[in-house]
């Protein structure tokens, strides 16, 4: 039998101080689901970077999480401006964030690279002026090859 848990978070784009609340709550849920600490950490960091991205670039959005026996799937969707150049955005160090955001400790150009690094699979669907959907999957067990 496959157990599956669904979680939905609405991420406000208005308040930078509260950015990360969804990720904190998500991390606590994973603990309850007996996910291993290392996997929790990877998934939480990926989610947190995604949440920050949605707050600083896209006026907030939603995070839909599905946890089953094998995977943690995180779908981050926003109605923001879209990512103009995904290839560039994936480069470590590349950022379009303002100086104001950098003063807050983000905009180092590590958000998307970190999300890719900590997830096992990541896809980005983005349309200029319409929004972006990032899907990340973190496996609960390392793959045996």
């Amino acid at each position, binding site marked *: 039998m496959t157990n599956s848990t669904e979680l939905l978070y609405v991420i406000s784009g208005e308040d*930078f*101080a*509260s*950015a*990360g609340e969804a*990720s*904190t709550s998500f*991390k606590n849920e994973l603990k309850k689901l007996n996910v291993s*600490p290392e996997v929790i*950490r990877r998934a*939480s*960091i990926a989610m*947190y*970077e995604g949440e*920050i991205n949605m707050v600083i670039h896209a006026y907030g959005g939603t995070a839909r999480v599905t946890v089953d026996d094998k995977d943690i799937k995180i779908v981050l969707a926003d109605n923001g401006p879209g990512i103009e150049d995904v290839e560039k955005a994936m480069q*470590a160090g590349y950022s379009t964030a303002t100086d104001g955001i*950098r003063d*807050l*400790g*983000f*905009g*180092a*150009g*590590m*958000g998307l*690279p*970190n999300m890719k*690094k900590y997830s096992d699979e990541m896809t980005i669907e983005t349309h200029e002026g319409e929004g972006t959907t990032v899907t990340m999957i973190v496996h609960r067990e390392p793959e045996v090859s």
Partner: protein
Amino acid sequence: MTIREVQTILDARLLTGEDSLDKEVLSACGSDMMSDVLAFVKDQAVLLTGLCNAQVIRTAQMMDILCVVFVRGKNPTEEIIQMAAESGITVLGTDHRMFSACGMLWEGGLNGGAGYDKFH
């Protein structure tokens, strides 16, 4: 090195987390950019930062960081300290600058973790 030793070496004020002073820390990371911190995960780590906002504690929460040290005399707000207290993170404040504080801990035997993670 214990958190208590970190406090002594840095001549630091304890802002919250007295119960955890005897916890062992194994590595440290110094940065004002949280995304840089998030890129390099180490176990039982200390985070030294000059950034003083709620996202420092969020970052520490996500990474299971045991102790946050605010350098250069930065004073976090009560709200930030409370947030750390709720998640069991010890918070210290030192007047030393980032470079000096990192150097002092290194000299005391704490390092950045074995080697470095290759990012690419």
